[in-house]
C-alpha cells in the first residue's frame, strides 16, 4: 500500500458527499434495515400487540371490548389452564432426557468402523422428518387394536394399553414421540463435540488411570460444555413450543388431559369451537413469561461469552 493512495483518498474525503463521509456509520444500518423491518413488523410488534389483545374480549370477527385483566383473572381460576401448565412442566423436565440420551447414542456411534457414517445419518433421520409425520407414526404405533406397541407387549401377555386415550399415560406417550427426534438432534451435536475433544487430555487422563464413567464425567463432559449448552437451549425451546405432536396425536384429549399452553391457546382462539382471541393471547403472554426466564439466561450467558472474547 503506497502512501500516494492514502494521500489521494484523504484528499478526496474532504469533497466527498455526506454519505461518503459517514459511510462507516451508515452502512451497518442500511444493511440491517430490511432484516430489522421484517423482524419488527412480524415479531417484535406482535409481541406487544398480544399483550394488548389479552386485555380485550374479542371473537376475532367483530368489535373488541376492553375488559382489563379479566382474562387473567379467569385464567387464574381455569382448571384447563393448570392442566396445561402442569403438562408444560412435565414436558420441560422429561424433554431434557434427550440430552443424556443423545450423548449416550453419540458415544455408542463414535467409532471408526465400516459404514459408521451411514449409521450416523440413519440415526439422525428422525430429526429431519416433520413432527406431523412423527405424530402420525407414533399414533399408529400406540393404537390399541393393531399398534406395534400393543402387539409387542401382547407377546409377553400384557396390555393392551390405550396410551393416547388414557389420561394417565397420554402426556408421557406424546413426550416419548417428541424425544425421538430431539434425541437425534442432541446426538448430532455431541458427535460433533466429541470430534473436537482434545486427544492429548484423554491420553493424559488415561495415564492417570481414569477410564469409563470417571473419564466421561471428569474429562469428556466438561469439554463438551458448548455442545451441552446448545442442546439445552434447543431442547427447552422445543419443549415450550410443542404443538404439532399434540395437535396430530390427540388434539389435546382425552378430555383435555394432554394440553399444553401452546396448544390450549390455539384451541381457545382458533380451533373449531374457539372464538376467544383475548383469552388465547393471555395464555400466550403467560407462556412468553416462562420463556423469558430462559431467554434471559441464554442472553446472559451469551453476553458473558461476548465480553470474554
Amino acid at each position, binding site marked *: 500500500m503506497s502512501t500516494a493512495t492514502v494521500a489521494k483518498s484523504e484528499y478526496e474525503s474532504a469533497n466527498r458527499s455526506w454519505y461518503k463521509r459517514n459511510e462507516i456509520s451508515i452502512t451497518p444500518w442500511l444493511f440491517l434495515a430490511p432484516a430489522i423491518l421484517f423482524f419488527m413488523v412480524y415479531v417484535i410488534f406482535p409481541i406487544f400487540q398480544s399483550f394488548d389483545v389479552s386485555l380485550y374480549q374479542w*371473537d*376475532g*370477527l*367483530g368489535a373488541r371490548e376492553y375488559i382489563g385483566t379479566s382474562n387473567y383473572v*379467569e385464567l387464574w381460576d381455569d*382448571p384447563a389452564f393448570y392442566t396445561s401448565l402442569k403438562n408444560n412442566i412435565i414436558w420441560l423436565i422429561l424433554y431434557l432426557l434427550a440430552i443424556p440420551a443423545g450423548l449416550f447414542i453419540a458415544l455408542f456411534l463414535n467409532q471408526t468402523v465400516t459404514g459408521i457414517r451411514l449409521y450416523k445419518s440413519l440415526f439422525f433421520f428422525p430429526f429431519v422428518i416433520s413432527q406431523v409425520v412423527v405424530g402420525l407414526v407414533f399414533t399408529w404405533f*400406540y*393404537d*390399541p*387394536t393393531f399398534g406395534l406397541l400393543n402387539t409387542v407387549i401382547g407377546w409377553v401377555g400384557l396390555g*393392551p394399553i*390405550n396410551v*393416547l*386415550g*388414557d*389420561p394417565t399415560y397420554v402426556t408421557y406417550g406424546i413426550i416419548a414421540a417428541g424425544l425421538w427426534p430431539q434425541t437425534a438432534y442432541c446426538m448430532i451435536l455431541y458427535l460433533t463435540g466429541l470430534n473436537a475433544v482434545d486427544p492429548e487430555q484423554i491420553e493424559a487422563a488415561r495415564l492417570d488411570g481414569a477410564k469409563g464413567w470417571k473419564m466421561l464425567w471428569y474429562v469428556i463432559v466438561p469439554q463438551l460444555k458448548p455442545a451441552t449448552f446448545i442442546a439445552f437451549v434447543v431442547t427447552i425451546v422445543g419443549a415450550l413450543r410443542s404443538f404439532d405432536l399434540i395437535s396430530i396425536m*390427540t*388434539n389435546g*384429549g*382425552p*378430555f*383435555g388431559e394432554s394440553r399444553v399452553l401452546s396448544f390450549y391457546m390455539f384451541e381457545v382462539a*382458533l*380451533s*373449531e*369451537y*374457539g*372464538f*376467544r382471541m383475548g383469552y388465547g393471547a393471555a395464555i400466550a403472554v403467560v407462556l412468553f413469561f416462562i420463556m423469558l426466564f430462559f431467554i434471559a439466561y441464554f442472553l446472559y450467558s451469551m453476553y458473558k461469552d461476548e465480553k470474554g472474547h
Partner: protein
Amino acid sequence: MRSILKASATALVTTAVLATGAFAADKPLSGDMKIFLDTSNPAPRATFEGVIAQFGEMHPDLNIETTIIDRDAYKTQIRNFLTANPPDVATWYAGNRMLPYVNTGLFEDVSDLWQGDLAENLASTKTALTIDGKQWGVPYTYYQWGVYYRKDIFDKMGLTKPTTWAEEKANCQKLVDAGIKCYTIGTKFLWTAAGWFDYLNMRTNGYEFHMALTAGKEKWTDDRVKKTMANWRELLDMDAFIGDHTAYSWQEAIPFLVDGKAASYLMGNFAVDPIKAAGLTDDQLDFYQFPLITEGIPMAEEAPTDTLHIPSGASNKDAGRAFLKFVASAEVQTSMNASLGQLPVNNKSSVNTDDKFVRQGFEMLNGAYALAQFFDRDAPAEMAKVGMEGFQEFMVRPDNVDQILARLEKARERIYK
C-alpha cells in the same frame, strides 16, 4: 361411482326443471360466482357438482368457480374466508353454529327468500335458521340419527328392536353376556358422545328441557341432568361400550361393528355409506329409533340440518340468492337428497323410498314431536366444547359426574351471561 351419481343427479334435475319451468322467469345472471363447499366426501361432492353444473347450464353467462374444502378443516376456516375472501355461497349448519357469523354481520340476511310458497315448504326448519327474527340461510338437507344395528346378530340371538329403555338394557345385557359389546363409539373428536347425551337427555327429560339446557336456561347441576347421567351410567356399568373409545375417530369405530365385536352404533345417517363400504349389506344392517325412557315424554329426534348461506361480503349476491332459491326448490331437493342418501327439507319434495334407511328416517322424523339440531349446533360453540369434553370424561370416569357437572355449570354461568 362418482360419475354415475353425478350423471343421475344431473338427469333428475334436468327433467325436473324442464317439467316445471320453475326457473325460466328468473332474470339472467352474469359475472363470476364463487361457491365454497364442505362436502368433501365422495357422494356429497358428486351431488353438489351435479347441481352446480345444472345451475350453470341455466345461466350460461355466469362463471361459476367451486372450491371444496375438507369437512373438518372447513369448520375452522369459515371464519377466515368470511372476512378475508368471501365467496358468494357457502355451506354451513343451522342453529347456534350460525350465531358467531350472524352476530358479527358476516352472513347476509336472506329473509326475502323466505316468502310465499318457499317459506311454507321449508317451514319445518324455519326456527333453526332464524336469529333475531330474520333468516340467514336456506337448508338443503337433513338426516336422522338413531341406532344402526347388526340385524343378523340380533336375529341369531333372538333379540328384537327395543322400544323401551328396559328392553334396550335387556338386549344389551344378553349381548354383553355373549361377549359382544352393545355399542361401538369413537370419542377422540368428542362429538359422538354428545349424540348419546342428547338422546338420553331428550328421552329422560323431554325436548323442552333439553332445549332450555342447551340455551343456558337450566342449570347443569339440576337433578334432571343427574337423572340423565344416571341412565347413561347404567350402560357404562354394564360395560356396554367398546373399550379404548377415546383413541378412535367415528370412522375408526366402524370396524368393531363390521367385525361383530359390537352390535350397534348410535349415529347419523351419513354413517350408512362408510359402514356398507366396510363390508356390511342391507341384510345385516338395520335401524331403530332410540327407545323411550321416561313414560309419557313425547319422542323428539335429532335431525341436523345442513344449510347454504350468502356471506355479507359476497360480490355477486344476486347469483347467490338465485342459487339458494334453486337448491331450496322441491325438485332440486328431491334429486339432491336421493343421491346424498338423506332427506329433503322442502315438504313438496319426494323421498327416495328405495333406500330403507332414508325411508325409516323419514317416517320417524315425520312422526317426531320435535327436532333438535345436535348438541354442538344447539349450544353455543364454547359450551359445546366444554360439554362434549365433559361427556367424554364421564364415559371414562363416571365417578367424576358431580365434578364434571359442576364444571359445566360454571362454564354456563360465564358463557351465557
